[in-house]
């Protein structure tokens, strides 16, 4: 397996606080790597560094062998790193289909195109990609309703759909089941497994629900106070004393 994304001694400091402390993370092609850790461990900071929402203090990030630290967020997406947000980050007043269309246009046309006088209907490949995406997340029948009117679970699925329509080779999923009912959670977990198998997607998953993490992950990285304290298969991580220390604060069981 070859590495699709590597971080190289990545450091991010906010004032005196080191949120990311010399992190060397490697994600291999085709795997599902989960990033776990207690609140404030620096998971979001790490994700934001990869998506270029934040500027690193030191270190390097390489995607498919090339440094991406000089890119802007939309350029990173165009390279092939997609992100689904923790909240249902959709376009509420647009129809479900238009939501997916936007991502499909971005994927087919790149970050910008000078085509303001061309009718949208003249891009059948965009239309096809939109419909495929909606099919994949099971929202094809709801394509004409306003996205804002979907139930919460469907909004989250649409959110994942938007991320998928841009056809990423690496998908960053920030707590995809946060706020979902047990049924919705189950459906989302099924979706994640499907994506990985059928689309051969590499996924970096940030998740609090340990049951999900241990069932879907190929590998797990544990973050605490900005640095990686353990890495390995679910079984290896589960038995690691440093992990138990971090989560339980050294309480004797």
């Amino acid at each position, binding site marked *: 397996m070859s590495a699709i994304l590597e971080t190289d001694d990545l450091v991010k400091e906010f004032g005196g606080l080191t949120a990311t402390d010399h992190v060397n993370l490697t994600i291999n092609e085709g795997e599902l790597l989960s990033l776990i850790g207690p609140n404030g461990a620096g998971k979001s900071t790490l994700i934001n560094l990869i998506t270029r929402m934040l500027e690193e203090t030191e270190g390097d990030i390489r995607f498919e062998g090339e440094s991406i630290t000089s890119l802007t967020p939309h350029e990173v997406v165009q390279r092939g790193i997609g992100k689904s947000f923790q909240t249902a980050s959709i376009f509420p007043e647009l129809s479900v289909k238009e939501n997916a269309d936007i991502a499909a246009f971005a994927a087919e046309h790149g970050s910008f195109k000078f085509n303001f006088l061309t009718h949208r209907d003249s891009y059948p490949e965009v239309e096809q990609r939109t419909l495929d995406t909606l099919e994949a997340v099971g929202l094809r029948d709801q394509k004409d309703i306003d996205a804002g009117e979907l139930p919460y679970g469907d909004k989250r699925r649409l959110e994942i759909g938007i*991320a998928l329509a841009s056809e990423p080779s690496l998908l960053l999923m920030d707590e995809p089941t946060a706020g979902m009912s047990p049924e919705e959670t189950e459906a989302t977990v099924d979706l994640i497994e499907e994506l990985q198998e059928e689309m051969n997607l590499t996924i970096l998953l940030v998740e609090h629900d340990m049951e999900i993490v241990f069932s879907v992950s190929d590998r797990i990285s544990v973050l605490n106070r900005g640095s990686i304290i353990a890495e390995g298969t679910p079984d290896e991580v589960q038995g690691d004393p440093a992990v138990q220390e971090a989560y339980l604060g050294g309480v004797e069981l």
Partner: protein
Amino acid sequence: MSDEVGTPEAEAEPETIDESPSLYERWQAIQGDEKTVAAITILGVALAPFLLVTLPEMLGFPRSYSWYHSLVTLTLIWGIFALGYDLILGFTGLLSFGHAMFWGVAAYSAGIFSANVTGSPIAMVLVGTLMAVLLAWLIGWISLRRGGIYFAILTLAFGQMIYYIFLSPLGNITGGENGFNGVEVGKLLGMVELGGAVPFVPPMFVDSWMYVFVGAAMVAAVVVGYRILNSPYGIVLRAIRENEQRAEFVGLDVWRYKLMSFILSGAFAGVAGSLYVIQRSYVPIENTLYWTVSGDIVVITVLGGVGSLFGPVFGAGLYMYVANIVSGIPVIGDFWHMILGIVFIGIIVLMPNGIWGRVDWVRDRVADALGGDN
């Protein structure tokens, strides 16, 4: 996900389909078409002078309360301005408070060009629009680095800067506070005077070539506006309005799309500003570059309904009526700004989506009555 009634699967079952399309469906099928939109606009533009000027006169409506031909022309000019402004305010969600500069710089450019090079109305529009586009490019490039209130203040500041530059340092070219007097509007295509009557068309419909010229620009503006809204830009701009961060994270260069939207709206303002000078044969600084013009265009667009294609044109009509007719009525005319304010509040309260929002609402009710499903 569950087996409750009303799941998508259940709805997707083929139901008994009514074979003959309802009136509503037939209307639906044609109304989305560009040619239909152009035809409706042509019809509207052609009938406006008759409906607003001639008909009230025939019905004995008092002269001092009714429209006159050049006011209909002026409404169309402001309508073009507002249509473009809605691209940035309604569709992209950016409040620009400096659009007077595009309208005004186009007006001065067209005017000065006519005095020094040629008075061809078409050339004047092209030059004015080009200058507005170049200015919008520059101002947008700087101002769009900030959003929200900062963007509004930056555009306002640049607008005022240009106002003062034209007022004083460039005073010997622009005429300073007296405005530019040397406008020389020539013949259209070298053949017809804009002020002259149109042969074979009774003046009760169209009084002059000027109206034909402005009307043609209005139709072109609507068609181009319609095209933009139905191009990928139509949804990309709305996506930026709704959730800018998400738009960035599907891989769109949000900043460049915003800049394009700003430039396009500057181009409409440029066309309108140039036409304004052609109609008036004079460039008054207080009606072109002064900041109140930036305020007027916001009011007009909101009155008509932000986020709609035709709405702003109706907003322009209402505004022009109050500013030019109501203001001339004895006694209450002195309070026309206050009357406009009351109208504005009334519309905001009663029709939150502007005049066009109410038209849409009525249309939906009619559609229901005609058997439409939604």
